[in-house]
């Protein structure tokens, strides 16, 4: 079910049916080039400074994954309730010497809300996407999407903006009212693809062994079921039959990845359900995911690569006690496990205390002294309480940035002509990670 061969077959049959509507293009990137030539949009291109790494997608097309000069498109769910997710990612970027911008001038994709309550519409979603795309473009940093749903939504919105002239014109008119214009990134890139592209550098910095760890992977639905042609596959991971991320980094780090029968099921997040019908999310997560992972695969940890999936799988297990479920399976994002393996502080950086299922046994298996780390963190909390300045992963923002998406010397549109291709280099050090 949902193997790459089957998805390809479905996609091919679908293309036949969709040809009748005359609306579908196969590779949206080719159409983007044509529209750029006609002056209808601008492509935010991946440049040598972005140090791209080529990967293969579902149909064997090449997707270049930029690894440097990145604009963090944060996830509202991650930042709100599992903050170790973004901090582990930024920490790895610092460790590997990658530069980035992490700004307050970003909104979420708003697609959690759309898929939960439908209080939006495609033009609004496309305009939200395009506003964020333009901000990334004017800072001359390539957008890196943290959330699986934002990734899925932005793939859909890019396709919509390319295929539907009416939506494109409406969105462009709105953007112009705020001094922006329509810019589409050459690739929509999910952070787990960055992690995969960085695997050699991550492995080279490995401090703790994942050999004793059995991991099960939950593949986020919106990573590969929305616009499946953009997902990364690799023959060395599941024989190319399932997405290469996030499994690839686990294999590279030496973990034992175990299979389980319901791998293709969603996590139970449901967008609406996780907030207002939690009995569904809890039942689904436990019965269809956590139990098979533990009882079939004897997992030590569940790894996934999306906000909603970590949230649901992790924060639904508590209710399992009511059903005699005598275990809690730690749930982490790939990037959190990778950071732990590289020696990141489990509390200060990976922020494991925000997770509901305890990770102590996992840390022990990896050879990490969790108790010492916790004691150190408790001390740090007390220090913060008595007014000590917090430790930060990058230079803090200036006060003016609470109000304005300021120009820090980045690329700006030519006056009067809308957006123009990058011409200037931002000054060194802007938004650069602290050593």
């Amino acid at each position, binding site marked *: 079910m949902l193997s790459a061969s089957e998805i390809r077959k479905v996609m091919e049959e679908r293309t036949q049916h*969709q040809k009748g509507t005359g609306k579908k293009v196969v590779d949206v990137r080719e159409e983007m080039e044509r529209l750029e030539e006609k002056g209808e949009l601008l492509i935010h291109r991946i440049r040598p400074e972005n140090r791209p790494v080529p990967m293969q997608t579902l149909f064997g097309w090449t997707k270049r994954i930029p690894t440097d000069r990145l604009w963090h498109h944060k996830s509202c769910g991650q930042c709100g309730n599992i903050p170790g997710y973004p901090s582990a990612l930024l920490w790895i970027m610092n460790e590997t010497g990658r530069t980035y911008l992490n700004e*307050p001038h970003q909104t979420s994709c708003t697609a959690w809300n759309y898929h939960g309550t439908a209080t*939006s519409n495609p033009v609004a979603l496309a305009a939200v996407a395009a506003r964020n795309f333009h901000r990334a473009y004017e800072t001359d940093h390539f957008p890196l999407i943290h959330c699986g749903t934002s990734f899925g939504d932005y793939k859909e919105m890019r396709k919509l903006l390319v295929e539907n002239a009416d939506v494109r014109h409406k969105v462009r008119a709105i953007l112009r009212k705020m001094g922006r214009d329509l810019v589409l990134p050459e690739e929509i890139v999910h952070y787990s693809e960055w992690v995969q592209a960085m695997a050699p550098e991550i492995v080279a910095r490995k401090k703790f062994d994942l050999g004793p760890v059995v991991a099960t992977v939950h593949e986020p639905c919106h990573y590969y079921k929305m616009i499946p042609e953009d997902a990364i596959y690799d023959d060395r991971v599941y024989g190319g039959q399932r997405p290469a991320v996030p499994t690839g980094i686990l294999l590279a780090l030496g973990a034992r990845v175990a299979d389980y029968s319901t791998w293709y099921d969603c996590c139970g997040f449901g967008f609406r359900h996780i907030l207002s019908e939690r009995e569904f999310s809890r039942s689904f997560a436990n019965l269809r995911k956590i139990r098979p992972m533990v009882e079939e695969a004897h997992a030590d940890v569940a790894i996934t690569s999306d906000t909603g999936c970590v949230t649901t799988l992790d924060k639904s297990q508590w209710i399992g006690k009511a059903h005699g479920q005598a275990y809690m399976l730690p749930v982490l994002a790939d990037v959190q496990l990778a950071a732990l393996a590289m020696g990141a502080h489990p509390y200060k950086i990976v922020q494991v205390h925000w997770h509901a299922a305890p990770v102590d046994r996992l840390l022990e298996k990896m050879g990490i002294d969790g108790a010492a780390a916790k004691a150190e963190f*408790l001390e740090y909390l007390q220090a913060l309480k008595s007014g000590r300045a917090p430790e930060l992963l*990058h230079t803090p923002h200036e006060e003016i940035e609470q109000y*304005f998406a300021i120009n820090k010397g980045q690329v700006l549109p030519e006056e009067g002509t809308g957006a123009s291709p990058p011409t200037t280099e931002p000054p060194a050090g802007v938004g650069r990670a602290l050593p």
Partner: protein
Amino acid sequence: MSVVAHLPHRTLSLADEEASSPPAMELTGRRRMSAAERSLAETIYQEFRADPRHEEFVLGCLNCGECTTGCPAARFYDFSPREMLQIAANGDATTLWDALQEKIWSCCQCYTCNMRCRFGNDIAGIISVMRELSVRHGVESTRRTLAPFGRSLTLLMTVGTQVSSDMIQPDFFRDWGPFATGSDKAWDVSPEIMRKAIPIDVLQTTRSAWEVSVQTSLELFRIYEETGVLDMLRGLDPDLTEMLVDIIEERREEFREARETHRARLETMRGPVATFQG
């Protein structure tokens, strides 16, 4: 003679139906509707069929059931994506109205059905179209279903993030936060300090997922105004919408004041930061 023929049965006139009290559902599954509901159902149905996405998302159906086989919602609810697609393709105003009452809200939007349908139907997408219509027209059952979302809609509309850490409270979403392991006492710090311990400055807030600059939130609100989202929300919850407008007015004021405070620096800048007026 079949058993069915012996069941109590009569044809109701419209007047009978409107005069009668609950039960609201007949054995046939046909919903008892007031004249106003009938008219609204017809309007929604016409808009649904006229939506350009209908033609694009609904391509045909073999009734093979592949979509339902993989559907998480079908395991726990009286719901099936096959039925939704059939209603979209072949239904009428009444069957669509029926679906809007509850079923459309069962879907998890996981897109598994889309991936299994050989016809290439966008079932998750057509369900969203149905949802949008019932929000826009303020269908009563939809108002009830979405009533718990006031808080997250406020955040979403004003700063563009869905959740904030101050939603995680010991008596609400207790199992989500640092409280989860029952070790609140061991931490002995406030949620604000817990956020300060995240090593990213823009995340050190409890009121939003991250600090969003005023310009960014005003640009977002402009999008909602221009694309009809605000009007849509008015159909669902007029009081909430007015409150949002007030919040944004205050932020616009704050933005104008900040323009004065930072005038000298802003004058040196080009691009949106120089042109956007709030």
